[in-house]
């Protein structure tokens, strides 16, 4: 059965610390039933995903989330008039609250989404991780929420060194003493604002799970992955799909406890003491194409849910399927950059261009 929606996807910043957009689009394109259009939504004219000509049909620049809901809504109105969207998949933490606020309006415009609620976004925030762990009966590392560097002088009463100083949205800095912790605090606070999260280091294998929740407490599907190669930023450059019942049970508990709606990445570490929950990222991870490669295409499932279709729970995938990332130089004509820079949009399919 053909599946022909026009799907907008954000996070085309496929750098050495890539956004998830290109991975999501590749997964959508890998769906044998998909023959719709892909519209890339970019924040900058040089986001690499703009120039993936075999993946993206149209591209529009959109305002940064810091410009607020009204600016985004006005831009989406313009886009909808030119290239009517059926589904929109936002993929960046910082933009999710704005898109969540526009969900009702987008529905009225015929744009389907499948997003976590504002309450769920707040619950999964790093600042609320301990509460989330307690609710889902999942162990979490010792954690303190810090709003002033002065609090770090007594941090060892609560969290032992070495520890991690984490930004409220992104970023983490390892600290082995108070001075490093204070430096990390200022770095994270200046980039991402307050509060800053201080988390105990748990030694073990980091395991990440890409998963999709139905919003009613059920797990649509999940693929766990162990990173096998890290960049100097600690980002996974290669990984392998694994299968483990304890991981699956923990993931199911998270979805049952939160009634999570939409995609997420569950970050855990397996130590001799067992599994600990490190973080919940409220969107697909950049490596989500592995789910399609392993036989459980979660982005394609999300697109169907956002389009109002039913998706049966998926449980089969191939453990042992790997991803190995590559950096490639794309060649693009100056006319494409010109179109983005001057008009804020780019259309590749002549017959459907406005």
């Amino acid at each position, binding site marked *: 059965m053909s599946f022909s929606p026009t799907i907008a996807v954000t996070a085309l910043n496929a750098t050495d610390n890539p956004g998830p957009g290109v991975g999501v689009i590749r997964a959508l394109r890998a769906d044998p039933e998909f023959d719709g259009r892909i519209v890339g939504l970019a924040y900058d004219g040089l986001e690499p995903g703009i120039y993936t000509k075999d993946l993206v049909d149209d591209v529009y620049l959109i305002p940064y989330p810091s410009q607020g809901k009204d600016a985004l809504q006005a831009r989406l109105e313009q886009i909808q008039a030119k290239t009517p969207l059926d589904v929109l998949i936002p993929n960046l933490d910082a933009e999710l609250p704005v898109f969540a606020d526009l969900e009702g309006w987008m529905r009225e415009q015929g744009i389907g989404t499948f997003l976590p609620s504002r309450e769920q976004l707040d619950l999964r925030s790093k600042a609320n991780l301990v509460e989330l762990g307690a609710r889902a009966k999942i162990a979490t590392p010792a954690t303190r929420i810090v709003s002033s560097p002065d609090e770090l002088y007594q941090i060892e009463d609560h969290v032992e060194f070495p520890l991690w100083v984490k930004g409220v949205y992104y970023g983490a800095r390892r600290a082995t003493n108070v001075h490093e912790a204070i430096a990390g605090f200022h770095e994270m606070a200046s980039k991402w604002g307050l509060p800053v999260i201080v988390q105990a280091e748990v030694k073990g294998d980091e395991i990440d799970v890409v998963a999709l929740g139905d919003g009613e407490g059920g797990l649509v599907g999940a693929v766990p992955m162990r990173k096998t190669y890290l960049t100097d930023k600690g980002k996974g450059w290669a990984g392998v799909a694994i*299968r*483990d019942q304890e991981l699956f049970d923990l993931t199911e508990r998270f979805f049952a406890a939160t009634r999570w709606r939409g995609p997420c990445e569950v970050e855990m570490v397996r130590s001799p003491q067992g599994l600990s929950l490190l973080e919940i990222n409220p969107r697909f991870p950049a490596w989500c194409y592995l789910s399609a490669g392993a036989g459980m295409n979660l982005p394609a499932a999300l697109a169907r849910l956002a389009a109002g279709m039913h998706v049966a729970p998926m449980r089969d995938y191939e*453990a042992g399927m790997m991803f190995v990332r590559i950096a490639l130089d794309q060649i693009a004509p100056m006319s494409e950059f010109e179109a983005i820079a001057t008009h804020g949009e780019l259309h590749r399919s002549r017959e459907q261009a406005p």
Partner: protein
Amino acid sequence: MKTMDHPRIRDLAISGTGFVFDPHTGSTFTANETGLEILRALGEGLEAEAIVARLCARFEVDAAEAERDLGEFLLVLRRDELLEAQP
């Protein structure tokens, strides 16, 4: 013949080349022919005595050498938590 269940060993993906993939952890390693034979035997649930007999028959070694090889390999498997630690 007595048997034991070793779920982590049973779930290993073992290639004829000696390449082994552990789907629980994502780890990979290689084993020689003796190691592969032991892994297969453990996967079938065989106990030490039966494994030693199989090694003797397969590799034409005496029981003492087979027991030594088995003991060393079991240590490695326990270290990597593929087998439960001995009580």
